[in-house]
């Protein structure tokens, strides 16, 4: 267990997660979204990703989710754009 959380590392975790969700789950950070009680587009996409991989669906970035994001993978990133 880490003794204390490092804000810089948390920030970079979020950036990495955002890049991952942009690439594989079509997260669009450019568009303006109406604020909803239930969360942000980031956490919605995170939920989608967590559900796909059979992780606990929380919409929050945790170590297990980050671990899956860091696994080597196939990068079919733009099939939707291609089609």
């Amino acid at each position, binding site marked *: 267990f880490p003794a204390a959380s490092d804000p810089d590392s948390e920030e970079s975790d979020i950036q990495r997660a955002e890049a991952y969700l942009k690439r594989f789950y079509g997260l669009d950070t450019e568009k303006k979204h109406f604020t909803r009680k239930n969360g942000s587009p980031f956490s919605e996409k995170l939920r989608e990703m967590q559900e*796909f991989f059979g992780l606990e669906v929380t919409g929050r970035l945790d170590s297990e989710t980050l671990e899956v994001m860091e*696994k*080597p*993978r*196939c*990068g*079919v990133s733009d*099939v939707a*754009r291609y*089609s």
Partner: protein
Amino acid sequence: ITPGNPVWKHTEITYRILNYTPDMAKADVDAAIQRALNVWADVTPLTFTRLYEGTADIQISFAAGDHRDNSPFDGPDGLLAHAFEPGRGIGGDAHFDEDERWTKGSERYNLFLMAAHEFGHSLGLSHSNDPGALMYPTYSSTDPDEFRLPQDDINGIQSLYGESKNPVQPTGPTTPSICDTKVIFDAVATLRGEMLFLKERFFWRRHAQYPEAELHFIKSFWPSLPSDIEAAYENPEQDEVLIFKGSKYWALNGYDIVQGYPKNIHTLGFPTTVKKIDAAVYNEETGKTFFFVGNQYWSYDESTRTMDQGFPKETINDFPGIGQKVHAVFQSNGFLYFFSGKYQFEFSMKSKRVMRVLRNNSWLGCQ
């Protein structure tokens, strides 16, 4: 299935290898690509013909970084490869990241396994959320020689192209479910406070503090261990987990396989008539390990590393209520948990009787 259901309208698909990776001999690349295409040809009416010039349906290339398809690679690890759904132009093409190290063996990254996955995309499959499927998006270390196309992938590709013309329809392995009450484990063991439930290519890993077990490939943790392990137990004094299959056994120390293994089970003192172990458990109170073989068991003294005299004995005589073959067994809180067929028996060592009959999957946390 890829959104929009893109498929090839013809069944005679062509492919062309545009360039080669320097990591492997050309003949090995050719063989890996051909075997990967055969994975899909074996379960559908599709055929694959190699072209040496002109434009093929599936153009195969190795490239690093930005390779002008709007999907740059990212250096070693991370993205390994990608492929485009069926269609004209770039459609169907498969690109492999040249910054990876491609191999023909079990080391990362096996080209055949990766190509078989990519060609699934080339034929119209999307990613699967079945962690045992070939089309699962993350790379798993598996033995390429043992590869069989999982049933989930067979179902997917056959929904696009129909069944094989082979009179005997091929079937593939399925991924075990956490909620399958009829699951029969190959082996169960503890490991540094966690529980491992081994089944075919997989194991569930359960920590007492987490309600649900995680499913993993055995090869992801211990690449040189075989699948279909038959028995396992933890010796906490040695901080080792012993793994048995056939006449061989391995000792694990965390992620590492202890040097000098595998060894032959006969070095433990079994007669040559014993060809395999069905189940094993270490009894912390006595320092003895019980090995179950058929309807008999043996007692092994871990301190003297010798088999106890007077064994084998009939299991049912010393463990009343455990009459059938034992598939797996482990110890927890002074009880032995015997897995025999569809049932799990909680056996009290103190009162020498079965206290409860449980479902086999009771430890896995099915919601």
